[in-house]
């Protein structure tokens, strides 16, 4: 709780306790509710799948709480073996999360009024959704991020993600038995929904097709996880080559 109380002074214009009714934190938490609900099915599937890959119910919240990046966690769990290929998992995590670099760069001007320590704390909670909400809110407020608001959003999303991935890990073994025959298809389903969310037209998706073809071909020919670097790198390389021609 000390952690939470310390956040109280973060929002300079607002002297109410953080997350008190009517405060900036409260406003953020309220705005985050629809996204929190959207997290639930993703989180349950991830937790259940992680449990199936041998994660304990402590390791699941450890991963989702320390890493807090859904896309990378889905990719990691899908590629997880026992023992895990650590280098592969870390490299894939970096590739999936490399978009954070751009997001952090666009958020930087809105954090200029904050001490670096607080900005670095806030950035731990930057995910696609909190980033988009913070950006939209700061635009309305004249270009300064309200830290109280941001931590309100972040609190809601973070708690929802960690709690429901843990519940998924508990419920997974039960679910797995009931729906054994189709349950594994939930995974590509989640990935395809995430991809649909990133869709920016067929031209922008051309590198995805390259990745799919390359990864599929390598998977047929070479056993093991080589299809992952092959697919990811050929997609990124084709994006690089295609961008020159635009």
């Amino acid at each position: 709780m000390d952690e939470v109380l310390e956040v109280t002074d973060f929002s300079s214009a607002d002297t109410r306790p953080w997350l008190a009714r009517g405060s900036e934190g409260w406003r953020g938490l309220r705005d985050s509710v629809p996204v929190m609900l959207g997290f639930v099915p993703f989180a349950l599937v991830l937790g259940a799948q992680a449990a199936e890959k041998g994660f304990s119910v402590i390791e699941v919240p450890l991963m989702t709480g320390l890493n807090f990046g859904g896309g990378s966690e889905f990719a990691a769990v899908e590629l997880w073996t026992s023992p895990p290929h650590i280098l592969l998992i870390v490299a894939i995590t970096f590739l999936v999360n490399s978009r954070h670099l751009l997001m952090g760069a666009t958020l930087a001007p809105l954090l200029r009024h904050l001490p670096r320590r607080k900005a670095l704390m806030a950035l731990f909670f930057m995910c696609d959704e909190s980033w988009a909400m913070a950006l939209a809110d700061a635009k309305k407020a004249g270009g300064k991020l309200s830290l109280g608001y941001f931590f309100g959003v972040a609190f809601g999303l973070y708690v929802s993600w960690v709690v429901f991935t843990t519940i998924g890990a508990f419920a997974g073994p039960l679910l797995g038995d009931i729906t054994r025959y189709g349950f594994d298809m939930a995974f590509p389903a989640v990935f395809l929904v995430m991809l649909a969310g990133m869709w920016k037209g067929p031209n922008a998706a051309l590198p995805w097709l390259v990745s799919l073809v390359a990864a599929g071909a390598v998977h047929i020919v070479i056993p093991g996880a080589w299809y992952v670097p092959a697919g990811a790198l050929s997609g990124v390389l084709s994006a690089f080559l295609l961008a020159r021609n635009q």
Partner: protein
Amino acid sequence: MIDPLYLTAIILMATVTYLTRIGGYLFLRNRTLSPRLRTVMESAPGCVLITVIAPDFVSGRPADLLALFITLMAATRLPILPTVLVAIASAGVLRHVLGG
């Protein structure tokens, strides 16, 4: 309850992820990225996601491929929860009918 190798992988994942979160703020804030680099960075996450599920597309099992196609149609039209239900149901039914 905590496997040391799992823990190592998780901590390294978390470290790399946090570096991507602060990297843009620390190193890119006063720089303009070339549009080309920007395009590449925007397409990278999608490349990785499609790569990870690529084996499902080349499984060669008719029931799975049909279910995957149905799932793809659902994913482009429906929210996450109905899509997952469609995926599980179609895979379950098709494997039963066509054989897994």
